[in-house]
């Protein structure tokens, strides 16, 4: 198991030889740019140091010492979770776009091809670069028209967690999913070194029930809250070996701030998209509030094995869509009326007198609108989990050698809450 630094170092010496790294387990398929083979230069398959759950990293080609990446801005179809497929816009076949990984000091070049029906551009959020590479169309460059390809080139003079997103018709293009993480690894060795890191892009979509496309006119009433454009139970778990130092890089290009909370551990916020936070300034948290248009790096040692929830603590954000403004039936005895209504409306069942959990049970076998997920879903080893949206699980296991899903945690005896009476 080589360290991340060694892996990247090996890439720098790749020279003219093709080098294909061993791929780590990922939910998504292999990531390749669309024009794969060039005669004169090596195709370097990035052996990603950052794990992008339900995503991938962007490969590059070395050309005369410049890391050249290819990004294709295009319409994509994204499955938010099984049962819901959404027509989005993204990069290289996915939303969020593939995570860009480079090293502080690299000269990087991005070839951006526009296959969207309208003009676009790419802004490199938080990156210090020449003004003409900043990507605000009209201000720093002419827009990239449909069918055109533009090149951005600059030298990276910082490290940290950054993002990339359009800056032409920005509101709409972001609303339908165009964004991605841009991780710049430090040139110097880190202390303490991080053993495993993840990238999570937070976002919110408004996909009205029964529809297939996000509504870009929605400003506050979003209903699908995503980690890397997936919702629970479609979110891939973050698999970690016990004892590893873990960094989770979180970006937020949605319209709301999100308080991201982890169970079983506390952490420190060690960086923002502005740069690293000095150790003396780092304070302990179990929840990091990630503002809009910001990134936060949080680090902790995974010393508490188990299946730990990682989720946005705004409770509606950890649910899938529901109606807001439906009548409140909590505590309402509907037994007499239910039969009467069911005679008029075959298939009607009264729900909600004792809470919303019975809805989840009913939703298993009642039809819902097309392409719509029930508000909560999912099963754990002990029964219905009933969450949605921005919810995932960090699986910390002793002594694993691979990072495929290890299944549910097997609890040591005496460490599970037990029923006492009644």
């Amino acid at each position, binding site marked *: 198991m080589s360290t991340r630094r060694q892996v990247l170092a090996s890439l720098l010496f790749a020279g003219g030889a093709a080098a294909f790294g061993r791929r780590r387990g990922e939910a998504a398929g292999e990531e390749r740019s669309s024009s794969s083979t060039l005669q004169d230069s090596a195709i370097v398959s990035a052996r990603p140091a950052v794990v992008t759950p339900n995503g991938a990293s962007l490969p590059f080609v070395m050309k005369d010492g410049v890391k050249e990446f290819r990004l294709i801005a295009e319409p994509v179809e994204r499955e938010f979770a099984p049962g819901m497929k959404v027509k989005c816009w993204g990069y290289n076949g996915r939303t969020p776009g593939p995570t860009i990984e480079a090293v502080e000091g690299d000269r990087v070049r991005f070839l951006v091809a526009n296959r969207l029906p309208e003009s676009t551009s790419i802004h490199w959020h938080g990156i210090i670069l020449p003004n003409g590479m900043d990507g605000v169309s009209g201000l720093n460059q002419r827009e990239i028209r449909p069918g055109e390809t533009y090149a951005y080139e600059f030298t990276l003079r910082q490290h940290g967690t950054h993002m990339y997103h359009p800056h032409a018709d920005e509101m709409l293009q972001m609303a339908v999913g165009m964004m991605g993480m841009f991780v710049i690894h430090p040139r110097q060795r880190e202390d303490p070194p991080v053993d495993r890191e993840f990238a999570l892009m937070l976002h919110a979509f408004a996909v009205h029930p*029964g529809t297939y496309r996000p509504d870009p006119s929605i400003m506050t009433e979003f209903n699908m809250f995503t980690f890397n454009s997936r919702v629970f139970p479609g979110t891939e778990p973050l698999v970690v070996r016990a004892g590893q130092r873990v960094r989770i890089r979180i970006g937020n290009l949605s319209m709301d701030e999100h308080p991201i909370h982890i169970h079983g551990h506390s952490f420190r916020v060690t960086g923002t998209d502005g740069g690293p936070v000095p150790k003396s300034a780092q304070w302990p948290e179990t929840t990091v509030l990630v503002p809009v248009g910001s990134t936060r790096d949080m680090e902790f040692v995974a010393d508490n094995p188990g299946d730990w929830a990682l989720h946005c603590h705004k409770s509606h954000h950890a649910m899938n869509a529901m109606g807001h403004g*439906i009548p*409140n*039936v909590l*505590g*309402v005895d509907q037994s007499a009326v239910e039969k009467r209504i069911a005679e008029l*409306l075959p298939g009607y069942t009264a729900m909600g007198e004792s809470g919303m959990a019975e*809805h989840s049970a009913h939703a298993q076998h009642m039809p819902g609108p097309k392409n719509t997920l029930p508000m909560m879903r999912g099963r754990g080893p002990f029964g219905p989990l009933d969450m949605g949206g921005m919810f995932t699980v960090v699986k910390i296991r002793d002594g694993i050698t691979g990072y495929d899903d290890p299944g549910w945690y097997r609890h040591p005896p005496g460490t599970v809450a037990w029923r006492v009476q009644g």
Partner: protein
Amino acid sequence: MRKEIRKRLCAIAMASSSIVLGCTTVEPKRGFADVQNAVAGRIDHEVEWDQGTQQDAHVRESVERLLTDELGLEAALQIALLNNPTLQATYEELGVAQADLVQAGLLRNPVFSGFARVPRGSPSQTNLEFDVAQEFVGLLFLPARRRVASANFEARKLHVIDAVLDLAARVKAAYFGLQASENVADVVRASADVATASAELAAKMHEAGNFGDLELARERALATELGLDVERRRGEVEIAREILTRLMGLTGDEASWSVPPRLPAIPREEPPLDDLERAALTRPDIAAVRQEADTLRDALGLTRLSRWFPFVELGIDNERDTRGQWVHGPNVSLQLPVFDRGEAGVARAESELRRSEKRLVALGVAARSEIREAQSRMARARRLAETASGSLIPLRQEVVSRALERYNYMFVGASDLLAAKRDELEAYRIYVTSVRDYWVARSDLERAVGWTLKHPQGVSAEPAQSSARPPSHPSHGGN
């Protein structure tokens, strides 16, 4: 000589009277058989004239038998045709016309006059005079008058046939109107039930402290409003029942009949509807007016001729004067056309004829237009009903299904569902009124052409009952 004249005159008198005495009996039922045949040929139903005979007991039994079951359209029609008292009154016109016909064949009675004049002085004898006189022109114009009366009789028959068809059309309109108002009352009641369920749920929400007084009052107000509509519709049903009861001539216990609750569905195919405007020519009321015009034409001819012979009386006069001398001889009375030369009478007859002819034209225009109008209404109602049942109702049902999906996944509440259900019921109400409009238009068309429309196979277009019912709501995979 006198004896011979006397004998000859008597012979003529005897001969004439024997001719005219041949048709003195009035048989009112003579024309009715023609009416019955015409009615049967046009609308395939029986009519009977209630004249207090044994026949009428059979009619009574038929009516009672028909009343034991639910009344289909044909049964209601048959009862009305047998039992409607106004129609029975109309039949008497035949009696009147027939009597007129007989009357037209009768000569005026001879008039016997007798005088006895007692002289004042003597030795005179009582002056006796007697004569027998006979109005003469009548004999001349007898055939013409009979022709006119006969033509009039024919016209009356046609009027009676028309009255039968008119009653049949009104019965059909009343029947379909009743079924439709029952259908609509059902739909409105279902809609009120939906609103009541919604209000009950609101009451439970209010009880639990989850609804305010405003929300509750709103729901209850709507349920109450729809309840008022139910009452109104019930009233419409009762009125429609009374109309049909009147047309069928039923009273008392007989008035507790029932009809199948649903309108018949519109038949898939129309009967052949080409060339119906031609039918206007043979319609009984038009034929009656045409007949009347012919009658008046004849009458005009008669008037023109008879103005020159307004009154002629021939007679035989016998007198014994005061000296006891018998004198006798013919006498003649004439009306002298000095002041009244009959022009006014002719002018009157001419105007009556022209009036009748113009009425005929007017009726012809109206009949053709009525046929076109009824066809157009029928076609439109069919299209509306087909669109309502083929598109609108299924779409409203889909709205309900999709709303239920939204409810299952907590996107909408129960009241949205119930509102969608009420919309579906409204769509069904539109369908029902279109079906009624079709059948009423069709009956109007039949009235306008003067016979029942038949499908090519000769099968009547009355399909099975209960086709026009709300398609059952598709149920979801249980719960």
